[in-house]
């Protein structure tokens, strides 16, 4: 098997189905390391991984951190509060300063779509996108693909239903692209205010009602809904949202018997997902977290030349 063709992991659109398969297969091997009593291999000893988080995140950041540590890479992270971003330094200045320290991989989360692409233009290190604005979150999509493949044994031909604020979701965009590349069908559902214009051109079906769409899904992915959306007139309140677009036990009855329930976290229990559903037998939310570390180990390994 050859190594990774890509120096950077910027979005799902730039990965081929063969790339995705290689990443997932590598992640399966990496997951095995995480099950050992001593969860560490020397593979990336002497390599430096720098994380830039311009948006708050605990889970993605700690997931990357663990991934780097389990492969023995040195890892260092800056978040908006501790970096120079607050002093008004531009992204380019910050990056050039970090570049001067010769890191091997730069991981970035940023509120602006395209920020990782901007970085990739301007630096020598490999760039991994840990979420850019509403655009992409490729590592999330990869861990979701890994989880579904692990549970269902396949991706081709599956029906994925994504529910929530599609317009503002990078998770939705990356999963739409990723699942379609692997031969799955994707349907999106949510209030029309949260459906971006032209979403059909990404190849998805738009379901007006969750009740109608739920029965046909093999996998249901619930997105986190944000309270601030009320101020933009996207929804009246959380109560109505939960009633119409929330996944509760009653609604779940309409789903198929072996449906998988996913959530990228953090969850709003009682809003987009009822606690009984989140904690119930169909949910694979904690497996997603476990696989997140494995996928990120695989990406660090592959962008640094592993095979």
């Amino acid at each position, binding site marked *: 098997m050859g190594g990774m063709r890509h120096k950077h992991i910027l979005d799902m659109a730039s990965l081929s189905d063969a790339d995705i398969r290689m990443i997932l297969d590598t992640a399966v091997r990496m997951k095995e390391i995480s099950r050992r009593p001593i969860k560490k291999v020397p593979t990336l000893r002497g390599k430096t991984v720098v994380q830039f988080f311009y948006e708050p995140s605990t889970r993605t950041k700690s997931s990357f951190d663990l991934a780097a540590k389990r492969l023995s890479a040195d890892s260092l992270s800056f978040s908006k509060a501790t970096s120079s971003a607050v002093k008004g330094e531009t992204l380019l200045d910050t990056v050039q300063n970090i570049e001067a320290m010769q890191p091997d991989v730069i991981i970035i989360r*940023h509120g602006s*779509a395209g920020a990782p*692409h*901007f970085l990739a233009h301007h630096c020598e290190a490999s760039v991994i996108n840990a979420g850019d604005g509403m655009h*992409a979150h490729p590592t999330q999509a990869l861990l979701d693909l890994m989880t579904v493949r692990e549970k269902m044994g396949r991706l081709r031909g599956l029906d994925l239903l994504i529910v929530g604020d599609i317009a503002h979701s990078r998770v939705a965009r990356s999963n739409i692209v990723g699942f379609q590349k692997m031969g799955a069908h994707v349907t999106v559902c949510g209030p029309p205010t949260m459906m971006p*214009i*032209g979403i059909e051109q*990404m190849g998805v079906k738009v379901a007006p009602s969750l009740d109608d769409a739920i029965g046909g899904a093999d996998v249901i992915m619930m997105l986190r809904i944000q309270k601030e959306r009320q101020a933009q007139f996207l929804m009246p309140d959380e109560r109505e949202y939960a009633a119409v677009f929330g996944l509760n036990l009653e609604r779940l009855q309409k789903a198929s018997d072996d449906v998988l329930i996913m959530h990228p976290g953090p969850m709003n229990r009682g809003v987009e997902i009822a606690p009984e559903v989140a904690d119930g037998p169909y949910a694979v939310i904690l497996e997603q977290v476990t696989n997140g570390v494995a996928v990120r180990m695989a990406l660090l390994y592959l962008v640094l030349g592993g095979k």
Partner: protein
Amino acid sequence: MDLIIRGGRIIDPGHFDGEADLYINEGRIAALKPGGGTGEAEKSVKVIAARGKIVAPGLIDLHVHLREPGEEYKETIASGCRAAVAGGFTAVCAMPNTHPPNDCAQVTEFILERAQSAGAARVYPVAAISPGLAGKGLTPFYELAAAGAVAFTDDGLPVANSLLMRRALEYARGAGCPVIAHCEDPLLSADGAMNEGPTATRLGLRGIPNVAESAMVQRDIALAGLTGGKLHLAHVSTREAVDAIRIAKSQGVAVTAEAAPHHFTLDDEAVCDYDPNMKMYPPLRTAADRDAIRQGLADGTIDAIASDHAPHSSIEKQLEFDLAANGVIGLETSLPLALKLVHDGVLSLPRLVELMACHPARIIGVPCGLQTGMPADITIIDPDAVFTVSADNFRSQSRNTPFEGWTLKGRATTTIVAGRVVFALDD
């Protein structure tokens, strides 16, 4: 006689189109002699050989941000005027959103003095509608017009208050000037970084819908109809706006409109790489909108081509796409891109001259033409000169062009203002 332009194709729409010699004396057109091309001139007379070239009335760019006073690190009146003449423009309209803005006679006079001493293009100041561009009241239109302002606009900060827009159109009628409207509903365009649609959805960028422009175009046309004021619509970018203007004109409303080269050349797919030089306001729209603009230019719905030249430095542009400033420079690519429409069969050459010289002059009420006695503002164009766009060769101080590296055909070779050669392309 001071100057003879010999053997070119003279295009003076409505008056003359054909090969002729043009004689210039004391800053004015002295004579136009059809045929021509030969004959002895006195040794003291400068002769410009123009065979194979177009000789047109001086081009006027209705929409230019010169940045002075206040942002001289982006552009100065002098550098902007040098860029203008290098692009074939003998005159430009200077937008008022400087620091301080052009909302009083002192600033208008300052701009005119600076332009005078730069000695390149003429500058026609456009003054603010409201003091401080704040949208709260009217500036002294009569005083500003007396100082040299040719029109009024709050460009960049659209007039959201409909009553203020109504009053501005009425009051400007008294001062004999048009109101230039930057049509935008700021609540509909809020936070948008590019055109709303499938491309923005794919790229994860917030979108600006066409209706943010077209709803305001509809409002302002209705207000022009009500008031009888002269309305000029800046940088029209949507097919809905083009349709609205077409209908308004058929109903006799006094409305004119301009379109920018980036809007008739590019579409929103150009944003795909998050290049901040593809970011401007209004944003690049879809191919259907771009084609509607071209159609509007061809059929007379849109009256003028104006660059919306908006210089920014790397400080504003070398940033994340959504954080980068809106705007691109255009003075030195506007004519070549308009000529591309001629080469592509969209426009005839006389139509191009109307769009870039005659109509702009008529809109702001200044003379334009090559008849005897008129000011000798002349642009000589080589329609076949092929060159590659390189911002490093620009006279403009800024580099934010979306056309870097493009190969274009046709450009100005000589620019003459009041009989004086202010730009000559060295071969």
